[in-house]
């Protein structure tokens, strides 16, 4: 599908394939400040309302974890390890601040390690997040967001008003709706965009100013509607699991002739889920409700399995997938437990599941390809 690649996709591929990018440099050149953040539950709206550029942290380009291994324990998964290694190598020196969430312990340790390392990022904040879904916890999270808001105001200046927050919510909701429109095109028997290309679309969205990205998405939608249809695929697959900023699994699937048509990953499907309810009132409460109650959270969130499983099964049916590949980073107990429960639920729903444990930087591609190929042979139409 690389032929006839729309120009916007080429741009997104470049953005997703690197860390610092020209749009970030331009933003900084105009005096703007860039704040990195780690997990999907940390709301970009808050940074945008504060006049900052949010940049989703990832380990793109990392080759090893030599420097980070000094800081992390052996049971820490490879995603934060690679991200931190990139930071120690100076790849995130463009950041003016960093917000780390206490989503899971593996991610939380980045905060401690960052503090203890020689890194001199001017602003460092730990955003405590609930580990259980529900109204009470959304209230707690709202207070934590208010604490972050004050910290951002104190460090970067400027008042984050409710109106600015609602404007940011409108902007980010537009992003989610546009991303959903592109996902919807993949319901076609001949999707005009591959799973690997979609990873670049989603990753770029967390690395660019939203106004620029939304304009790019509109251009991409128009281009994709004109793109010649690819042939039919022997199997349509869905990807479920953590991270999702690395297109290697989609690449393996698509090298084997099948196609990834949707996903439930941290950079992908979970990011564009519906939108923050614009009902007026307290915008932080609306954001907290969206993040803690309404949006299917990462598997680390207790009390949210039914919502997560329901969203996965609904998407699998909506996109007419033949099977699901579950990818779990080594040491990730949250997703290990989730797949244990999903195994029976998906079986009852008649959706085949292949669970693969992998590392952030894809290793043993031959072994992975054997399993993926066998899975495709099992579920193919």
């Amino acid at each position: 599908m690389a032929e006839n690649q729309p120009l916007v996709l080429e741009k997104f591929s470049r953005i997703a394939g690197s860390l610092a990018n020209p749009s970030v440099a331009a933003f900084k050149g105009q005096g703007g400040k860039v704040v990195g953040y780690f997990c999907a539950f940390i709301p970009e709206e808050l940074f945008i309302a504060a006049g900052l550029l949010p940049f989703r942290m990832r380990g793109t380009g990392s080759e090893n974890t030599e420097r980070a291994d000094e800081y992390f324990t052996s049971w820490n998964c490879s995603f934060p390890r690679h991200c931190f290694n990139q930071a120690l190598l100076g790849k995130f020196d463009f950041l003016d601040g960093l917000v780390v969430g206490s989503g899971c312990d593996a991610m939380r340790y980045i905060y401690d390690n960052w503090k203890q390392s020689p890194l001199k990022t001017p602003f460092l904040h730990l955003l405590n997040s609930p580990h259980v879904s529900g109204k009470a916890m959304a209230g707690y999270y709202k207070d934590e967001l208010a604490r972050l808001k004050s910290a951002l105001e104190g460090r970067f200046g400027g008042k984050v008003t409710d109106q600015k927050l609602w404007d940011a919510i409108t902007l980010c909701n537009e992003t989610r709706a546009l991303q959903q429109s592109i996902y919807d095109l993949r319901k076609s028997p001949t999707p005009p965009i591959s799973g690997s290309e979609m990873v670049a679309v989603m990753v770029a969205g967390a690395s660019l100013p939203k106004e620029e990205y939304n304009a790019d998405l509109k251009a991409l939608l128009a281009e994709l509607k004109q793109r010649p249809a690819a042939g039919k695929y022997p199997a349509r697959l869905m990807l479920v699991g953590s991270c999702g900023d690395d297109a290697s699994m989609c690449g393996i699937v698509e090298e084997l002739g099948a196609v990834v048509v949707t996903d439930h990953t941290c950079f992908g499907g979970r990011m564009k889920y519906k939108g923050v309810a614009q009902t007026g009132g307290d915008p932080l409460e609306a954001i907290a409700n969206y993040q803690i109650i309404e949006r299917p959270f990462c598997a680390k969130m207790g009390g949210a399995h039914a919502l997560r499983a329901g969203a996965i099964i609904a998407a699998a049916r909506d996109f007419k997938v033949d099977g699901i590949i579950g990818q779990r980073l080594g040491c990730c107990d949250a997703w290990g437990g989730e797949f244990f429960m999903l195994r029976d639920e998906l079986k009852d729903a008649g959706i085949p599941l292949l669970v693969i444990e992998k590392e952030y930087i894809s290793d043993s591609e031959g072994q992975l390809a054997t399993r993926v190929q066998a899975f495709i042979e099992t579920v193919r139409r």
Partner: protein
Amino acid sequence: MTFGGIDLGSTTGKAVVIIDDKIILGDIVMATPKPAVTARMAMDAALKNAGIASLQSLDYIVSTGYGRLKVEFANENISEISCHAKGAFHLMPSVRTIIDIGGQDCKAIALNDKGGTLGFEMNERCAAGTGRFFQVMAKVLGCGLEGIGAAANISPTAANISNQCSVFAESEIITLVNNDVPLPDVITGINKSVASRVSSLARRAGVAEDVVISGGCYNNEGLISALGQCLGVEIMKLPLNPQFMGALGAAVFAKEKAAAKTAAK
């Protein structure tokens, strides 16, 4: 019509030729540094045994195994999981579980009554539960793989090997040898340890009888016996050399694919 199946594994290459319904096995060819060369050697052996002069006489060839993409003369490639299932079910339609213990990996495949794959499990990036584990231990014991295979009877005083990791297990075995633990006890301990690991994998895929073993480790009777005990089933013997199951499955696929292509014309 004639069909070829080739299984280019990490340790050996195997090929099978099917002439109409007759199955002809090649030889077990040790892997060379060049997969394409191993592939040709394996296929030449099968052609020779089948009395076929030229590769071009084969109507359709399917490759499988880790080197499946390196077999330039194959018409297509299919994963070894599908091929082991196809080969074993072709020979024994009562098969519902196949445990393939190869040179560098181990897999368990669950089948339905039509030979379709219900599910499979494969070892993760680790030599535990594979032929390589036995190679390392045979070297430590100085008895060769034949020595391990020859110790078929389970020693009632088997040593306990607690480590699954090849590196740590090697150190554990060196300690046992240094403590003058008798060789049959150590070998039985190794077989029980691997059987324990493989049985967990098989249970994850789902074990239903009949259960058969494919892959090179079928030669190790002590392992097969220990595995049967772990799973609580009688492990059935395939009527042809189980090491050729991947290649046989590939050849059966070749026959089916050729028939489908003819029917589509």
